[in-house]
């Protein structure tokens, strides 16, 4: 099904399916291809790099795929030895393991026949490399650094904050969209006006409030201050304004209380807008950095983003862990998009009318 749709999509032409390519088709494909590279290039690079070993990451020139030098066990040697392809003076090329390096000379051993040893100049050998996935980039931080803890903190913050955001934003939007009251315009403008105040400006005052409430180093300090978003209120209000007024009046005639109208009529019909806001909220909360950094100082309440920051030291950055854990943090957001994106395009709006 999906492939069929994809093939028919790729067959689209300006003058209808199956016609020769018009120059605008070519331009469109080039434009889209550039877009794909720009959007997915960095992500692809991130994923591939996250499987590289620390040494492979620092290699220059960089390789696209995660190569690693092959190491072999040689009888009589306690440690694994790196394997090299060596051009010997007699003209033959053999794969030898390196015992040790002394200056510009490497002492090599044949893994098949440990009795044979060779002395080889450094420029005569070349490492044997295979594609190898450094899965320890993932497993080690997950075990050693309590990354699962950070993950669950992030999930908690994201889920709870999104639920609270959806609830109180939709309630505010309902009030501003459905009721007539003096000062309604002013209230709406005030809500939208707060869009113009950046987080950095109110960071200190909000921090003081949170401290005063004794919430520092609690996940609620991250959840509560940003729960009411002007964007969300505005988005939902605009959507609710498009709902037919008759539906709400019909519900009133049907003896529904205001809460029931909100919960059983307006909320289900606002689902497409709620899905959009949910996606936004999940992205905001999952990627939030500055505010959690300010209020969370203890390791056990770190969210993923703050924990990632911990890999970045003053003197050295553990790139292999950082890249791998960045991939981990990307997965949930990607999944959310996969499952919620159909809601964005689904309109439920006016199906019961006329």
């Amino acid at each position: 099904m999906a492939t069929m749709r994809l093939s028919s999509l790729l067959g689209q032409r300006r003058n209808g399916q199956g016609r020769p390519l018009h120059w605008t088709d070519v331009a469109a494909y080039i434009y889209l291809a550039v877009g794909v590279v720009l959007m997915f290039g960095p992500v692809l690079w991130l994923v591939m790099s996250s499987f590289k070993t620390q040494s492979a990451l620092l290699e220059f020139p960089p390789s696209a795929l995660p190569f690693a030098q092959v190491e072999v066990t040689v009888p009589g040697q306690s440690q694994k030895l790196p394997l090299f392809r060596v051009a010997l003076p007699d003209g033959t090329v053999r794969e030898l393991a390196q015992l040790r390096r002394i200056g510009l000379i490497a002492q090599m051993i044949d893994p098949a026949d440990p009795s044979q040893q060779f002395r080889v100049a450094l420029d005569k050998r070349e490492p044997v490399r295979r594609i190898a996935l450094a899965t320890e980039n993932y497993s080690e931080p997950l075990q050693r650094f309590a990354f699962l803890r950070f993950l669950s903190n992030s999930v908690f913050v994201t889920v709870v904050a999104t639920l609270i955001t959806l609830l109180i934003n939709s309630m505010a939007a309902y009030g501003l969209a459905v009721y007539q009251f003096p000062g309604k315009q002013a209230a709406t403008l005030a809500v939208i006006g707060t869009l113009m105040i950046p987080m950095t400006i109110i960071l200190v005052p909000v921090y003081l409030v949170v401290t005063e409430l004794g919430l520092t180093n609690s996940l609620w300090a991250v959840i509560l201050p940003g729960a009411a978003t002007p964007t969300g209120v505005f988005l939902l209000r605009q959507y609710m304004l498009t709902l037919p007024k008759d539906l709400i009046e019909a519900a009133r005639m049907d003896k529904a209380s205001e809460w029931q109208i909100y919960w059983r009529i307006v909320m289900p019909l606002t689902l497409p807008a709620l899905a959009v806001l949910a996606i936004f909220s999940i992205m905001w909360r999952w990627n939030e950095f500055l505010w959690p950094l300010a209020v969370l100082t203890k390791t056990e309440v770190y969210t993923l983003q703050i924990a990632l920051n911990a890999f970045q030291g003053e003197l050295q950055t553990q790139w292999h862990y950082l890249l791998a854990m960045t991939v981990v943090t990307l997965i949930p957001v990607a999944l959310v998009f996969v499952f919620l994106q159909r809601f964005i395009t689904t309109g439920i709006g006016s199906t019961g009318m006329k």
Partner: protein
Amino acid sequence: MAELKLSGARKSFGTIDVLHGIDLAVKDGEFIVFVGPSGCGKSTLLRVIAGLENVTSGEIHIDGERVTHLPASERGLAMVFQSYALYPHMSVAKNMAFALENMGLKPAEIEARVARAAAMLRLTDYLDRKPKALSGGQRQRVAIGRAIVRDPKIFLFDEPLSNLDAELRVATRKELAALHAKLGGTMIYVTHDQVEAMTLADRIVVLKAGRIEQVGTPLELYNRPANAFVAGFIGSPRMNFLPAVVISDDGALRVTVGEREVALPRAASGLVAGTGVTLGIRPEHIDVAPDTGMLTVTVDLVEQLGGETYIYASAPGLPQITLRQDGQSQVYRGDAVTIRFTAEHLHIFDATTGAALVRP
């Protein structure tokens, strides 16, 4: 099942007055139709009764209880909207059950009531469908069903048939009449279609610019309209209105119609010579009478419907005159015919106020 009483109900939106003091009493079990041209305030009046709009002043009583400031949900009325306003995310059964759930009825009782209403409206097979999977007529019936299950004090209908095609409209109109006969509830119905009003109503309320022009049974309004507006609004084709001037009123009223002087064998007391009046005569009360004609007119258009014929004719200085003839007429376009008014069916209205001076 209830009575409704409106006294001095006024409604203004800002500085615009929509209702100018409506006094009306609706009897228990009555089918009342509000009719009038668009913008006459009939829908607003219905919404005021429903409680969806508050009156600016005046009182509303239902069954003797004052409900003027009661919200819509507590008045115990049910309304069928022009757009049907079905909840798009609920099945037909859920749509009908919604109000009952809000009333706190037991699930078994709700199911029984929904099933009964569905059977009455032939919706039993569609109970699990969403409104978007229904035809216009079915949606209409769901909207009515949603009102019926409630067993409300009064049913309110806001132009419920205007979104249906002509054939379905006639069929649903008959069903509504049958439904009223069966349920016997008090119903208030708003329409701009005078045919719907005539066919459905026990009594019709004719509204114009926020005022009641006349209240009466369909035939009362048809036969004895209180003024030129009601006379013109009720009846299709419209009543003919001819400007005239009274010459004398001594046993037989003599008037000038256009350029002709016409003697009407009918007395009307109190008409002073020289008064400007409007003669009103329904199309079926004008005959083609070659010998005893009062006016000679030229035929502009003939509509042959088989069972009846409409003739549109004109005379110098007069508006177009419509005649209704039974059967098939032998009059053709361009013919000059003489016509005669059936004098006992003649209405005479004041030329300025439109008030009826002489009624048949």
